[in-house]
């Protein structure tokens, strides 16, 4: 009985970390993209976001939760619309959705390591 409660409790504690901010819908492999910013960093929740245009496709970049994105050095208005950026991340398994969970952003000499442990 006690063991069952312990096992159940561990799952309850472990699941949020695995599930939300889940990368389950993303590819294993890391993809790099270079494009132009069409919408700068939006630091509101649940995840910071950004949009870039690569060739003729607009990509939705999903960043970390706002506080983590801020710790990586990102701020609203820091990367202007029109700037060229290179990003790395795991793109959505569904290739019809141009969406990427973004690990790293570089604009010129500025680098933002959003998920350094995933690089």
């Amino acid at each position, binding site marked *: 009985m006690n063991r069952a409660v312990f096992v159940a409790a561990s799952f309850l504690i472990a699941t949020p970390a695995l599930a939300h901010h889940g990368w389950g819908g993303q590819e294993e492999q890391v993809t790099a993209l270079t494009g132009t910013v069409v919408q700068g960093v939006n*630091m509101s929740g649940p995840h910071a976001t950004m949009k870039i245009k690569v060739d003729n496709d607009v990509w939705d970049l999903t960043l970390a939760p*706002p506080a983590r*994105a*801020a710790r990586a050095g990102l701020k609203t208005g820091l990367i202007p619309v029109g700037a060229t950026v290179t990003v790395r991340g795991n793109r959505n398994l569904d290739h019809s959705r141009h969406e990427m969970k973004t690990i790293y952003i570089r604009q010129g000499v500025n680098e933002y390591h959003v998920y350094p442990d995933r690089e």
Partner: protein
Amino acid sequence: MDLPHVLRWLEQSPLGVFTRGLGVWSYGIINLAHILGIVMLFGSILLLDLRLLGVWRSIPLAALSRPTTTLAMAGFLVAAVSGVPMLAVKAGDYAGNPFLFIKFPAIALALVNVWLVHRSPAWQAHAMRELAPPERHRLALGASLSLVFWLTAITAGRMIGYW
């Protein structure tokens, strides 16, 4: 106006702009309020519905009905007031989210059920006298529907973030 338009309007509304400007912890805090509201709402509802379904018969229904309905109403208000800015932050992003189409109709059905239960003769009599079996069955039916609708709303609400 269709739903994507409404959502984009909400995102660009003063509420959306205001919420986005509140700082990096604001979403987490609003989300916390939403969860606490749901805890108050569903915790109370679960107690009352189980009692209406025949659990804990030794507790008089009238003793349970007042605190649970009061807390549930307060919880609903907290959840609703915190829910709107959570949606407004990036409302446009949720335009294609199918769980929205499950959650909000489920809430509407749950509220209609609340209204129907509260205007039923059985509910109106429960504080005054012992209920007859058909009246208890009426309230048990309301309790079953309540659990189905609220659990559907909460499940769909939780799944919005995983779509």
